[in-house]
């Protein structure tokens, strides 16, 4: 409950949290909210600026941009959340094992993390996509892979300190198994920092995924993915500015919300603050 009280004080984080809930709502109920069909082309209405019929205007094929952005929420949220969840599950498990058992296993896991760190994130993603081929599923795999090492490091360092605490020793003296100690006694203590990183990471993942789609390596047209929409708009700069503006705002606000929310969580979890 102290957590909730501390979190409530971060007004901007609360607003960001509400915005994220709203995004989830929009993503789930997209077909009921969106005014048009995201794939229906209408060349007589191509590249129309914002108007009462089309609030965000229409694209080069006459598709309603607002509708496409609404459907794009589904893609961005699911890519962001699924990739980080996969990365977190693998990373947290590896971090627990690494910190708990130490020794040879620890060496192997941490040195592999070092190697993953040797590739700047988006380049690693490009390499993965080059191997697996372009497409959203492969982008999810790529982003998941490079979320692993940070989760592993965070959880490992937490595990190292919790391992020595009295309650863990007590559990051990009562004959608890390694698995039980790792997952029931140690893991909950590592959760707060993992959750903060998880939230921040979703923002980064959405950014990376949309960048890859923009580069033509992720979602392919006619998918209403935000980055892919911006890629389509690139040839019409100066001709139809609204094509560039709205999908960008969608990415920006979504990532911003996750970052501010993550900042708020960190402040609420951090015992040093207040």
């Amino acid at each position, binding site marked *: 409950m102290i957590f909730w009280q501390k979190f409530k004080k971060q007004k901007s984080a609360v607003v960001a949290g509400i915005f994220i809930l709203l995004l989830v709502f929009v993503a789930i109920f997209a077909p009921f909210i969106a005014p048009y069909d995201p794939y229906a082309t209408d060349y007589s209405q191509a590249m129309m600026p914002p108007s009462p019929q089309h609030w965000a205007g229409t694209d080069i094929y006459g598709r309603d941009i607002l509708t496409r952005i609404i459907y794009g929420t589904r893609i961005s949220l699911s890519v962001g959340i699924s990739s980080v969840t996969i990365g977190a599950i693998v990373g947290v498990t590896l971090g627990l094992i690494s910190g708990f058992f130490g020794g040879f296993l620890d060496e192997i896991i941490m*040195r592999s993390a070092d190697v993953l760190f040797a590739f700047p994130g988006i380049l690693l993603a490009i390499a993965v996509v080059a*191997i697996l081929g372009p497409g959203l599923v492969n982008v999810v795999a790529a982003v998941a892979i490079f979320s692993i090492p940070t989760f592993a490091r965070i959880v490992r360092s937490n595990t190292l300190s919790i391992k020595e605490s009295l309650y863990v020793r007590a559990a051990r003296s009562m004959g608890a198994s390694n698995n039980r100690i790792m997952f029931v006694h140690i893991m909950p203590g590592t959760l707060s920092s993992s959750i903060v990183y998880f939230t921040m990471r979703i923002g980064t993942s959405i950014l990376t995924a949309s960048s890859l789609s923009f580069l033509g390596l992720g979602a392919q047209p006619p998918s209403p993915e935000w980055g892919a929409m911006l890629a389509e708009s690139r040839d019409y700069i100066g001709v139809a500015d609204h094509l560039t503006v709205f999908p*960008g705002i969608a*990415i920006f606000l979504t990532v911003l919300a996750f970052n501010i929310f993550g900042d708020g969580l960190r402040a609420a979890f951090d015992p040093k603050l207040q």
Partner: protein
Amino acid sequence: MLKYFIRRCLSILPVLLVVSILVFLFVHLLPGDPARVVAGPDADEATINRIRTELGLDKSLPEQYLTYMGRLFRGDLGKSLSSKLPVAQEIALRFPPTLYLALTSLAWSIIIGILFGAYAAMHRGKWQDYTAMIVAVSGISMPQFWLGLLLMQLFAVHLGWLPVTGFTGKFKELILPSLTLGASVAAIIARFTLSSFLDVFQEEYINTARAKGLPERVVMWKHAFRNALIPVVTMVGLQFGFLLGGSVVVETVFAWPGLGRYMIESVSVRDYPVLQALLLLYSFQFVIINLLVDMLYAVINPEIRYK
């Protein structure tokens, strides 16, 4: 000090080794027969066989790796599949534009980032602090390609002040791409500088300085500034990797004739020797820059080297 440097240098060797093995295996991870992939989709059986022998693909993997590394040390990175020119030559041609872009971006983002961070720290809890940090968190959340498109739209297309795309060596052409590339780095540095200053403000020597009646200006710039910058140095180094990654996106937006755009082009035409060489180059650069940052850190912070 020397001992620390040597130890640190040796510690990156295993990382470089594993990275080189991974990059070497990259071609083998591709679906299908590597010889067929390298030969291209229209090659006949004879060409594929010739390429297989030429690349030594009929030998065992460890043997192939040694041959690959041997050629690497002689500066032979293979030939580009699309241009048929040596990859090393293609890379040398595109390296300078990327370097100019990265260095210009880094330079302005360090200066602006530190100034913003220090300014916010001086006005902790006031509107200047909040404004600086809102700008910073927005900078982090801004997709680079979108920022690039917006800047291009405004300053190049509508106002006509700056060239839209391309690079022929003029400073004017560097402005928009480096603003785009540096924005998020500047934001990250600003946030980090702020928190570093706030840590330093807790120190006893700051209290002492204030207690003996020094003006806040002197406390800030003479006592706090240098100490607050120590952790920022590490952060700047880490951001260089981010810049390398970002250059891929920004170069594509601005049709910049550098390595980043070359990488995307080679992905789309499946030019694997080029891709392999670029992956190796980028990751080696990244590891070595981190090494240099660590050393610089040891030079400015004596605590590290005596550990």
